[in-house]
């Protein structure tokens, strides 16, 4: 059944596909960075003693987490330029959508990481004479970060996979580039299989790394 496979088509279109891959990687890198930064802010706000602030953030997180990413992309695609009031390229609209969406997930992981450190530890640290800041800095955060790094990495792998959804707005990422070649040359089998294998290799290696981190650092 693989007799009619035409792998030459992959070679012939390698530069085009590579450009798509670059866009995918770029989008992932920027979205992970932005999502983490915003996620930290959201997590801190959510754990803040100012209740209304915590509630607003909680509402935001729950709201975004109950929406499909595709719908979020469509929303931001039409909304961002209107809100900013000046032209924005499709790439930035989508990037903002990913940052806002992923931040909701990251913030939950970070919050869970901080909350996972047992209360007794804070009491113990404070009893030892550490200030609140010091106990956060030397006791809570080192443990919290160890707990959440593997999960954050896993979420980033999910994020890399999610970037393929920019397909719906025609942004030329890896999958969309492959899709263009697939339909232009009527070679969907080769192209989609290739995309699947590339993602499988990247994500599988990354998730193995996440597992190793988990084993090495878990408390």
């Amino acid at each position, binding site marked *: 059944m693989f007799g009619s496979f035409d792998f030459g088509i992959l070679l012939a279109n390698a530069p085009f596909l590579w450009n798509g891959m670059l866009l995918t990687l770029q989008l992932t890198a920027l979205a992970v960075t932005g999502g983490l930064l915003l996620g930290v802010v959201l997590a801190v706000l959510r754990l803040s003693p100012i209740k209304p602030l915590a509630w607003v953030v909680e509402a935001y997180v729950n709201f975004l987490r109950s929406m499909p990413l595709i719908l979020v992309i469509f929303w931001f695609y039409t909304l961002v330029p*209107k809100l900013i009031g000046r032209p924005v390229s499709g790439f930035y*609209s989508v990037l903002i959508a990913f940052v806002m969406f992923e931040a909701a997930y990251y913030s939950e992981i970070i919050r869970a990481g901080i909350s996972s450190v047992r209360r007794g530890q804070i009491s113990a640290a404070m009893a030892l004479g550490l200030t609140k800041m010091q106990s956060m800095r030397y006791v809570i955060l080192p443990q919290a970060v160890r707990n959440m790094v593997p999960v954050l990495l896993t979420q980033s792998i999910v994020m890399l996979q999610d970037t393929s959804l920019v397909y719906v707005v*025609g942004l030329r990422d890896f999958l969309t580039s492959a899709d263009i070649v*697939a*339909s*232009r040359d009527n070679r969907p089998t080769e192209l989609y299989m290739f995309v699947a294998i590339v993602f499988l290799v990247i994500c599988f290696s990354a998730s193995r790394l996440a597992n190793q981190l988990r084993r090495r650092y878990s408390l």
Partner: protein
Amino acid sequence: MKRILGTVVAVTVLAALSGAATAQDGLVMKRIAETKTITIGHRDASVPLSYLGPDGKAQGYSIDICLKIADAAKEELKLDKIEVKFVPLTPQTRIPLLTAGTVDIICESSTHTLGRLRQISFLNTTFLTGSKLLVRKTSGIKKIEDMTDKVLVAVLGTTNEKAAQVEIDTKKIKIKGEIVKVKDHSQAMLNLEQERADAYVSDDVVLYGLKSASKNPDEWEVVGPYFSYDPYGMMIPRNNDDFRLLGNKTITRLIQSGEMEAIYKKWFEPGPTKINYPLSDRLKENFQLIALPD
């Protein structure tokens, strides 16, 4: 001093208000002047009006016309150079991208309709076509009435999809399931190639283009009488009278100088994909009608 301050505030507020009221006016020309860049929206597979060439760059009949408009903008605004940027789009993303200002002009195969005019504006009609069906020669389908128990595919958000739905409803044609709605020509073609669908409804010129660009053009056939009227024009944002004038003037000049026919010949007779779609008398007449006197 107070009075001066008051006047300054009043003038600023007034200026801001008037600015807000006419914020849409001439935004495109201003943007082109400031950035020395014109951004053209194009399609991936509207052969041969707006599609990706073998080098992966946008090309086609509509693109050529727009490149002339870019030249005209450069001259009008007395710029030393103008950069042309290309942004790929689909029927679902084109209007949001245009109203957002991401692209200045959309050069592909978009039908000039009253409904769309509520959102955006069009340049004068530069192509005339209508809905037909692309089918396998062996399918025996000759018109949309033959679609009983057959699968029809269309691109979401096109005039053809709507026209086909109206045809099916009014003539009570029992197609198999609902019309399958996909993202763009390429996905529709894939559905057809894989025999998931029996017919693809689109503008006949695009169908001839897809047929000519396919692996085995002889396998395919464009059938049926037209069941919609689709005059194409470049889409531009609303409230850009100066830009629209520039665009229409450029088109008029192209017609008067005979360049328009040359561009047509380059892409259609027979064209890079051997589409062989000669200039019709109707389109010739249309060119005469829109070439307004100075």
